[in-house]
């Protein structure tokens, strides 16, 4: 049996077995869950190579599975995150209800993502896409809060995307007579101009929903924040990347081949830039860590989409690199929030304060991930952002640079807010009992944060697969002279020379830190955060002076004109208008037999009037 099929079967059978093994014991269920995640990952990393291909034939369609360099790259994200978040999940779900339901959908969605990446034709792509959608939908409504609003919003937006994609798929089929992705690519240039624009546009709508591109993003904040955090790590880290994956295919193999593609590319890039800017502002406004990170995810996906959409080799590298990094640090952050939620029971940034001494490891993971998220050297986030700026400037997208810069500067605001809200500030009596999260939750977070450090210094670790993926799209081999293209590094010639800089920074960091930190630490004593200068007032035990409400109020006042207009509201009022319209059609059926008879007569008359046309 082919190994890809084997992995898929393992996932799907394993999901069902895991779901029902809860009847035996919770421990067995946990172990099975981990086995079902780890074994396919091991199989994948050892057994799958670019030559494995397998075909399942149906009368309607041929399902072709195989791996491309691009899907290998994305599989790295999915498989790695799935395993890490899996361990985290076991810790987080410990003692929760309906574990079977959760595990089932978790594994199903992972399997579906893997299926998407391994699909070489649109039918299996779409099937797995939809499995992923409803599995994630079922997890989004796991908590059962506001299901009618959030769940329906997510599902409707997904349905819009999926049906747009489906339409594109059947159009492709009608033109090429095949569902294979490679056939589409090879026959794309021969299509009519209308189809050349329509098909990518429809596909982009489909992918844009999952990648939370602007007018299609309205589901994301609610869905991200309502799912359990261990899944949101997957949701934002891996699942949204499926949209990116599709976009890469559309942009690189379709739109870059026709001159009209530039229009769509620019539109998407602009939408993405606006998405990034606006959602960053919204993230600043949030007081709930989950929602904050949700908006932040949308913004970060915006950068990735910009990189992919611009389409110069450099920007694609930037986009793909950021996609990986975003998977790493954003999952770590969601895990941090989940850990805090588990230990304190809330994610409200205005309530929880001063956990740094209670949960030091969690804080460390949060700190490193936040630094990566903010794009500050020497961590991984910076490398991606740097390449993005470079590529935007070199390709003369100057207004996009400004927008991206604006949003990434504004991102510092929420970065600080989340660190401050949970971990800094005064220690409160209410959280005095809080303990560090269990090790099974800590370890994945720490591994992820370490990888953001490592990838900042050694980006070539993932630049190699990125390069392979890009070469598979016919782009030039940039791995060797990647940095030549960027004017940054020509002092060191054509080798990858990020490391010396980063070493330099780290050296300075270590020297100064050791000098100041340890020197000061040995000479000073720790005093509690209640011992602060407050005009001589002695802070009582029940008093907490932490500044947490209305955190960026002045800033938000400054940007209020932008924030007043919400797409969400427009869409809702549109939907409401449509429903009212349907109320009108409903009245056609008024329940009166005579009316129905009149309808029949009118129908007869109309048919007779147009009877001549029936002759054809």
């Amino acid at each position, binding site marked *: 049996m082919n190994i890809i099929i084997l992995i898929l079967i393992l996932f799907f059978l394993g999901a069902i077995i895991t779901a029902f093994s809860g009847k035996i014991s919770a421990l067995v269920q946990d172990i099975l869950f981990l086995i079902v995640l780890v074994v396919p990952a091991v199989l994948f990393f050892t057994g799958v190579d670019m030559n494995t291909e397998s075909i399942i034939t149906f009368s309607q369609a041929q399902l072709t599975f195989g791996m491309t360099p691009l899907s290998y790259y994305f599989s790295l994200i999915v498989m790695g995150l799935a395993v890490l978040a899996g361990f985290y999940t076991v810790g987080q779900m410990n003692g929760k209800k309906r574990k079977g339901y959760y595990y089932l959908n978790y594994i199903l969605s992972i399997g579906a993502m893997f299926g998407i990446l391994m699909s070489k034709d649109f039918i299996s792509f779409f099937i797995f896409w939809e499995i992923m959608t409803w599995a994630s939908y079922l997890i989004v409504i796991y908590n059962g809060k506001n299901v009618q609003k959030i769940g329906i919003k997510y599902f409707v937006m997904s349905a819009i995307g999926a049906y747009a994609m489906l339409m594109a798929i059947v159009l492709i089929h009608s033109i090429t007579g095949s569902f294979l992705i490679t056939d589409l690519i090879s026959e794309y240039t021969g299509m009519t101009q209308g189809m050349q624009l329509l098909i990518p546009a429809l596909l982009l709508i489909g992918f844009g929903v999952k990648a939370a591109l602007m007018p299609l993003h309205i589901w994301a904040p609610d869905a991200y924040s309502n799912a359990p955090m261990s899944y949101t790590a997957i949701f934002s880290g891996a699942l949204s990347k499926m949209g990116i994956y599709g976009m890469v295919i559309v942009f690189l193999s379709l739109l870059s081949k026709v001159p009209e593609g530039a229009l769509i590319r620019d539109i998407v890039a602009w939408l993405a830039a606006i998405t990034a800017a606006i959602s960053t502002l919204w993230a600043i406004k949030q007081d709930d860590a989950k929602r904050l990170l949700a908006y932040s995810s949308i913004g970060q996906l915006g950068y990735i989409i910009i990189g992919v959409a611009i389409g110069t080799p450099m920007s694609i590298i930037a986009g793909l690199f950021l996609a990986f990094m975003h998977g790493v640090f954003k999952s770590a952050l969601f895990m941090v929030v989940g850990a805090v939620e588990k230990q304190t029971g809330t994610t409200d940034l205005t309530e929880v304060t001063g956990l*740094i001494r209670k949960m030091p490891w969690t804080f460390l993971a949060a700190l490193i991930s936040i630094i990566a998220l*903010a794009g500050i050297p020497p961590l991984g986030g910076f490398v991606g952002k740097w390449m993005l700026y470079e590529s935007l400037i070199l390709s003369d997208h100057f207004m996009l640079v400004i927008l991206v810069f604006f949003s990434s500067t504004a991102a510092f605001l929420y970065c600080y807010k989340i660190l401050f809200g949970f971990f800094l500030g005064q220690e409160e009596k209410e959280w005095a009992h809080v303990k560090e999260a269990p090790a099974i939750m800590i370890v994945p977070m720490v591994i992820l944060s370490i990888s953001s450090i490592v990838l900042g210094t050694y980006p070539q670790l993932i630049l190699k697969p990125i390069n392979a993926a890009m070469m598979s799209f016919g782009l030039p081999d940039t791995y060797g002279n990647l940095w030549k293209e960027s004017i*940054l590094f020509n*002092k060191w010639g054509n080798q990858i020379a990020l490391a010396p800089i980063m070493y330099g920074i780290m050296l300075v960091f270590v020297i100064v*830190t050791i000098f*100041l930190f340890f020197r000061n630490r040995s*000479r*000073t004593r*720790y005093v509690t955060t209640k011992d602060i200068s407050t005009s001589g007032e002695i802070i009582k035990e029940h008093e907490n*002076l932490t500044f947490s409400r209305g955190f960026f109020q002045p800033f938000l006042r400054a940007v209020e004109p932008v924030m007043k207009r919400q797409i969400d509201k427009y869409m809702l009022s549109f939907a409401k208008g449509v429903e009212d319209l349907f109320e009108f059609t409903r009245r056609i059926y008024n329940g009166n037999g005579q009316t129905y008879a009149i309808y029949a007569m009118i129908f007869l008359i109309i048919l007779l009037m147009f009877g001549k046309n029936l002759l054809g």
Partner: protein
Amino acid sequence: MEGILMSILGAIATFLLAFVVGMTYGGIRRKVIARVQNRYGPPIYQNFIDAFKLFSKTTAVHHGAMHLLGPAFLMVSAVVALMIIPVLRDNIWFTNLNFKGDLIFLIYIMTFGPLGMALGAGQTGNPNSAIGVTRGLSQMVGFEIPWVMALVALMIKYNTTSVVDLMNVQNEVGQWLIFQNPFAFVAAILASLGMFRYAPFNIVGAPTELASGPASENGGKFLFTMMSAGSVFAFVKLTLLVDVFFGGASNLIELVIKTFLLYMIPVMYGVVNPRYRTEQAVTYFWGWPLLFGFLAIIYSVYF
């Protein structure tokens, strides 16, 4: 071995230069403010005395690891920025790590310090610190936009993100960029008002309002670290402006003259202005500076 020793010595020399110049400029600023207010003012070396006193003060308490690390972050960021910026043009002195001095790298590494400091300030538990930090971050969003617009205008025009390349361009043309794209200079200098955080943009550490904001729990050596990092930062910012708009400096005297003249702009603007409120400080940068930024970009793209 010798090379390493030399580069370490060079780094120390750069640091000392930046420290001395930055501190002296700070002293001059105090003197200027005093004179504008019809006072005699402290001596120019007053900042050195203050720094030395702070350094010699006992520092007995800290509020936790981040509090200890905050000033260290600030210092790291200042030193790294200093190591990267090309101090002198065509001179082997003071070229530490600067791999042609990438602008984007510089912008980011310069935000790293304040953010680290903000974390340190956060852990002290003093509400004033956090308020100051939020103000500072808000203001940063404000001034970064025109600042980046000005830089992007130049980067697009000359298709480079390197400071050294920009300096070379000015040398080849024989004309400073301030004359080639005056709008960019105006936008950048207006943005730098916010960057220096002098009045009217001193909303972060407003002493009478916030009890000096992020610094409010830091005394002694912490404050000394912050003060010297601030001086180094001031030097870095001035050098950057000089490099980008005034063709850099080929020797120290030229550098000092150019930076001093530039430094006087925010100082003079500050002495005659009261303090803004936060949203005013943010939206200030989205008015005229933004317009100049647009003009700069349009000018560099179409002319």
